[in-house]
C-alpha cells in the first residue's frame, strides 16, 4: 500500500542519498571518459570530479554545494488512495531531509520582489500522475541552478526536422555550457505542447546512460547530438577538451500537425536523481 507516510520516507531517503552520491551510470561514464580525453587539463578536471565523488560518498558531504531545488514526480497507481495533502507531506519530508543532512537552502519565496529565502528549501516542485495498478514510483531530482539556467525551449517549424533539432540543441549548449558544469547530461524533449515539452526534457534526464532510447529515431537523434556537442571543444569545466557531454537523453511525445516543440534541460556533471519504488 503506497501511503503518504511511505512516500514521505521515500523522499527523505532519496534526498539524503542523491545529495552525497553521483548516479552510478554518471560515475561510470566519467570513468570511461577520462582515459579517452587527450587534453591534460580536461583529464585534471575529470580527475577532480572523480575524486570529489569518492570523498562525497565516503564522508557523506554533498557532491556539490548547490544541493538544488527539488523536483518530485510521483507516478501513482490508481488502486492507491493517498488521502491527505501530497504537497504538504512532501514539503515536510523535504524540510526534514535538508535540515538533518546539512544541505543548502536555495529556494526563494517568490521570484519577483524581495526574493526572500524560504529557509527550509521548500516548496518541492511536485508532479503527481496516475497510472494503472498499485504502488508508486517516486522520482526525486536535486536540480542545480547553474545547469537549469542553461536550458531553453523552441517551437520549431515541422520542416526544421531532425537537423533543426540538432541545430537548436547544439546552439543552446554552445552558448551556455561553460557555466553549467560540463561534462553535461543533456535532456531533450521533442513533441507535446508548449507547456509539456519542458517537462519532457526533464523526464528524459531520468533514463540512465547506457539504457537505450525508446525508438530508433530517438537513438539516431541522441547519437547526432552527442557527436555535435562533443565537437564544440568546450570540454570538462569549459576549459577545453572533447568531453562536453557524457550523454544525450531524448524523450518524445505526440504533437499537433503544425508543431515541432523542442526543449533542452541541461544536467550538470553532478546529475543527482533517485527513483524509489513504493510497493
Amino acid at each position, binding site marked *: 500500500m503506497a501511503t503518504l507516510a511511505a512516500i514521505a520516507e521515500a523522499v527523505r531517503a532519496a534526498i539524503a542519498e542523491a545529495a552525497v552520491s553521483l548516479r552510478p551510470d554518471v560515475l561510470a561514464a566519467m570513468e570511461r571518459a577520462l582515459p579517452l580525453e587527450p587534453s591534460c587539463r580536461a583529464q585534471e578536471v575529470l580527475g577532480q570530479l572523480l575524486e*570529489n565523488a569518492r570523498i562525497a560518498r565516503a564522508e557523506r*558531504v554533498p557532491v556539490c554545494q548547490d*544541493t538544488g531545488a527539488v523536483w518530485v514526480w510521483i507516478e501513482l497507481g490508481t488502486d492507491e488512495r493517498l488521502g491527505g495533502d501530497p504537497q504538504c507531506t512532501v514539503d515536510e519530508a523535504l524540510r526534514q531531509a535538508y535540515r538533518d543532512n546539512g544541505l543548502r537552502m536555495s529556494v526563494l519565496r517568490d521570484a519577483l520582489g524581495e526574493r526572500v*529565502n524560504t529557509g527550509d528549501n521548500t516548496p518541492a516542485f511536485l508532479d503527481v500522475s496516475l497510472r494503472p495498478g498499485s504502488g508508486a514510483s517516486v522520482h526525486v531530482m536535486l536540480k542545480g541552478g547553474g545547469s537549469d539556467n542553461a536550458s531553453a525551449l523552441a517551437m520549431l517549424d515541422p520542416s526544421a526536422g531532425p537537423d533543426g533539432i540538432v541545430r537548436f540543441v547544439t546552439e543552446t549548449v554552445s552558448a551556455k555550457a561553460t557555466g553549467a558544469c560540463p561534462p553535461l547530461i543533456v535532456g531533450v524533449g521533442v513533441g507535446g505542447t508548449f507547456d509539456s515539452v519542458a517537462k519532457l526534457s526533464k523526464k528524459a534526464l531520468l533514463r540512465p546512460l547506457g539504457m537505450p532510447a525508446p525508438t530508433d529515431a530517438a537513438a539516431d537523434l541522441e547519437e547526432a547530438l552527442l557527436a555535435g556537442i562533443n565537437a564544440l571543444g568546450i570540454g570538462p569545466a569549459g576549459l577545453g577538451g572533447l568531453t562536453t557531454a557524457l550523454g544525450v537523453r531524448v524523450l518524445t511525445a505526440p504533437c499537433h500537425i503544425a508543431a515541432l516543440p523542442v526543449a533542452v534541460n541541461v544536467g550538470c556533471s553532478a546529475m543527482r536523481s533517485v527513483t524509489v519504488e513504493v510497493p
Partner: protein
Amino acid sequence: MTEAARIVLPDAGRVLRELPVGTPVLLSGPVFAARDATHERLAFELDRDGVLPYGLAGQVLFYAGPTPAAAGRPAGAVGPTTAKRMDAWTPLLMEAGIVATIGKGARSDEVRRACARTGAVHLAAVGGAAALLATAVRSVEVVAYPELGTEALMRMELEGFPAWVAIDARGNDLYALARAEWAGVASRRES
C-alpha cells in the same frame, strides 16, 4: 601538465597579474565568498561611500555559497557558482580594488576588458567538485549580511585551493582559447 603556481593571499595582486592565461594555481590565504545578493549590496555600499566596504580593496572574491559546516569540518561543500551572473558588477568592483575573482564559466567582454584595464584576473575552479574543494578550506566566517544565509559575505581561509587563470591581466580568455583549440582537434579527428 604545467606545475601549479603557489599563490599566497592577500597581497598577491602583483604576482597574479604576471601569470599567463591557462596557468594552474594553488591558492592559500583569505578570499571573500560573495554571490548574487551580496554583489547587489556591495555595489550599493560602494556607490554610497565611494570605497569598497569590509576591507575588500586588494582582496579576492570567490563566487560561492557553501552548504552548512558539517561536524568536524570547517565547511560543508564549497565550490564555484556561475561567474557570468556577477558580470554586471565586476568591472565596477575591479576598478575599486578587487584583484581577482574565482568562479565557473565564461564571462562577458566587459569583464575581460576590466581585467586588461585594472590588472585584475579571473580564476576558474571546477564546478561540481565541492566536496573535494572543501578540503582546501581551513575556515569560514560570516563578515556581513548574515540574514542572506548561504549568500552572506564570508571570509574563507584557503590552503592549496586549485584553479586556473581563466582571464589574465591582459584580457586573454581561456574559455575562448581552449574551446577554439579543442574544436579544431575534434574537427581534424573527424576528417
